[in-house]
């Protein structure tokens, strides 16, 4: 990881503060363009993810604090996918109470039963296909009865 990415990885995702924007795959590239200028390329998770505005501001702010004048460029391609989430990030999500997405499931709506992030049971049911943010769906564990969020495959 280069120095710029190290700085950027201090920025948490505004909706899910346990993971940072680098391990989430939002930051695609960061390159030095001048003596104290740099360019940060980001890609949106969903077309309408409202967190993108905050993320852009956060990037400019933290880079400034570290002496960089950052230009943020949004690129759509390659298309963001949950497959980019590292194993470490997946474990952080689970510990936070969000069931991480399966890897390589392109048809995200078909899937195995979702594991409860707390007791690990697969005896769970979907409450709602949609949840508190665009990237999540709502589930409930039928063993420990806890409701939980599932980070949808995308």
């Amino acid at each position, binding site marked *: 990881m280069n120095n710029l990415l190290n700085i950027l990885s201090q920025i948490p995702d505004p909706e899910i503060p346990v993971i940072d924007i680098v391990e989430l795959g939002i930051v695609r590239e960061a390159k030095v363009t001048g003596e104290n200028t740099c360019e940060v390329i980001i890609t949106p998770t969903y077309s309408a993810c409202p967190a993108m505005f905050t993320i852009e501001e956060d990037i400019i702010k933290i880079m400034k604090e570290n002496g960089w004048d950052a230009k943020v460029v949004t690129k759509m*391609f390659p298309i963001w996918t949950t497959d980019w989430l590292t194993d470490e990030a997946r474990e952080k999500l689970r510990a936070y109470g969000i069931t991480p997405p399966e890897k390589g499931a392109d048809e995200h709506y078909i899937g195995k039963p979702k594991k409860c992030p707390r007791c690990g049971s697969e005896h769970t049911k979907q409450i709602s296909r949609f949840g*508190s943010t665009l990237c999540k769906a709502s589930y409930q564990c039928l063993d420990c009865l806890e409701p939980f969020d599932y980070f949808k495959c995308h």
Partner: protein
Amino acid sequence: MSALFNYLLKLADDSFIMGQRLSEWCGEGPYLEEDIALTNVALDELGQANNFYQYASRVADNGKSEDDLAFLRYEHEYVNAHWTELPNEDYAQTILKVYVFSVYQKLMYEALSNSADEELSAIAQKSLKEVKYHYTHTSSWMKIFARGTEESRQRLINAIENIWEYTKGLFAKVEGEDDLIALNIAPNIEGLYNEFVDITEKDFQDFGLEYPKNPFMQPKSRTGYHTEYFGYILCELQYMQRAYPGCTW
């Protein structure tokens, strides 16, 4: 204006008006989970519209921003299909609207993923993932209504009788579209319409519904002519920018 600009407006206006209409359900959904579902779908549509407007603004390169395109055009300048501006009415009609629209968008975005225009292809690939999910959600509701109670079935049938004649308007072309088809930037829309009929006919069989065999289809979608509902949408949509020109958050 260029053919590509017109075409981007068609994609943007469809999503924009659909999102605006759906957000009328915000806080009014039949129960909490559905309220969240519909507003999530509406948000996806607004996000897609934003991406298309941004691209259109760069293509036109005349100092007009994506917000100008969204909020400061007159009624006859919008090229959305009539389908998107029809009222939500009851939940059956709302679900029918989103179901049909998701089949249409799925076909469009699948085809546009292979567009010779790289940027258009990227936005389409991104949006495709989202509309697939809308399709899963609304087709399951179509089935529930069709096979639920006598009343739910009747309401869905009424909705189909009321508005099916507007479906073909989704497949209307805009000025210059044939040039884009020739350049492999846009897909052949007539071919997509045939696919649309095949998919919906098969789905209706699965839902247990009779497929509408109405030969009449409303003309003049995307020509600048709108249904009587459209002016009211714009009044609400554009109110802030008209009353306080240039206002920002």
